[in-house]
């Protein structure tokens, strides 16, 4: 069967010790038996490793941060599209999703399709809204509270027992055993990610994750559970293994059915010693470890591409348990000329 040729733009090329999902998403698409993809890498920084990985991106462009405004970002996307004729865009950063979701119609007008959660789905699963989300969809979540001032810290002892988790709006989470430590983490996180800061009940157990894809109609197209086996000092998985856990899959299917989730997602849960599952975070995008799911038999990025193109997708029904991934670091040798091109011309 001849493969369908497609041009796909992908962000999240920061394949660092805090890896973005871009490179694993691209690897998954390159292994598609259905699509023959030309990959346009979209990067925010000129040292994102994916830019320089020749087998990964065919062409890379710098784009402005979403904080520069929706117009600036969309103008740049239009400019790139005029040259590359992009069919599908897969954004991979939490911080850029809002802008791309708001621009979905504009993107469609210029022929670029995407498959993203709705604004309502994106907003209601936010860390700050997790307790209400848990109640609405009957999912266990740890008690949490969003705070916006140092003054709120003293009263935390009325609602929480120490230790508590101190979390940023988008990223970062630290365990605090007393008020002083909450203060310290509050300052550190708010300086980096702004307010609010989320204080969350600490649930003791094992962290387990699921990568999943919803079709927007309530159907789960794919879902693979994983446990991190090797965690970096940033809390990122450097190694992991697929699990056989029907309860995790039930929770995932129920959540996708009830929210009619549209797009990729990552569920982060804590499994307690009593085999209870607490949802601690819902990431509204494909995670950086998605290539493990591909290795286990579910090419979730390929299925997402099909959904974006409006094709019928048969849900995956199985995956291999005990599949493992181990990340590694690798030195790419580049030339100053390439760095010059991406820095000065904004493309490579």
């Amino acid at each position: 069967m001849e493969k369908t040729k497609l041009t796909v733009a992908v962000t999240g090329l920061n394949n660092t010790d805090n890896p973005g999902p871009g490179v694993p998403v691209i690897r998954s698409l390159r292994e598609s038996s259905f699509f023959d993809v030309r990959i346009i890498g979209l990067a925010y920084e000129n040292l994102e490793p994916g830019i320089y990985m020749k087998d990964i991106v065919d062409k890379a462009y710098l784009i402005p941060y979403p904080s520069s405004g929706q117009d600036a970002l969309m103008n740049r996307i239009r400019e790139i599209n005029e040259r590359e004729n992009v069919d599908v865009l897969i954004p991979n950063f939490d911080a850029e999703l809002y802008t791309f979701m708001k621009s979905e119609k504009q993107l469609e007008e210029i022929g670029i399709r995407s498959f993203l959660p709705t604004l309502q789905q994106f907003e209601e699963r936010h860390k700050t809204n997790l307790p209400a989300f848990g109640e609405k969809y009957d999912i266990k979540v740890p008690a949490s509270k969003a705070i916006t001032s140092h003054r709120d810290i003293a009263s935390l002892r009325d609602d929480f027992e120490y230790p508590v988790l101190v979390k940023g709006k988008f990223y970062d989470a630290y365990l605090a055993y007393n008020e002083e430590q909450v203060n310290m983490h509050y300052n550190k996180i708010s300086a980096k990610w702004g307010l609010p800061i989320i204080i969350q009940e600490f649930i003791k157990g094992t962290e387990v994750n699921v990568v999943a894809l919803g079709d927007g109609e309530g159907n789960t197209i794919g879902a693979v559970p994983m446990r991190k086996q090797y965690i970096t000092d940033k809390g990122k998985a450097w190694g992991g293994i697929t699990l056989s856990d029907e309860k995790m899959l039930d929770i995932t299917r129920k959540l996708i059915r009830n929210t009619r989730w549209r797009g990729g997602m990552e569920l982060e849960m804590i499994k307690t010693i009593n085999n209870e599952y607490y949802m601690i975070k819902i990431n509204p995008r494909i995670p950086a470890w998605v290539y493990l799911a591909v290795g286990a038999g579910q090419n979730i990025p390929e299925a997402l591409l099909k959904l974006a193109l409006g094709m019928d997708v048969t849900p995956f029904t199985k995956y291999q348990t005990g599949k493992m991934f181990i990340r590694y670091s690798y030195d790419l040798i580049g030339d100053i000329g390439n760095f010059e091109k991406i820095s000065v011309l904004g493309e490579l």
Partner: protein
Amino acid sequence: MKLRKNIAISESGFVFDASTGDSFSLNEPGKEIMELMARGSTNEEITKWITSRYDINQESFERYLEDFTGMLRQYQLLEPDDDFPGSTDS
């Protein structure tokens, strides 16, 4: 006592719990004991088998077996066992 389903024991004595991702390494007698448990053998049958193959008396082995099963319970590798008062699997 019964091993939980989803526990795989390989020829080399490598044990994999597919529901948690945990893995363990066993020596030869440990592997034999777990294989017997997987087949549903009773403590008496396991004791008889091991004492017939290894140089160990029944009393000593029963003590070791109790330690070993305690460890399996701790790692949640056994099905809940109502007869065992200290079970944490329930």
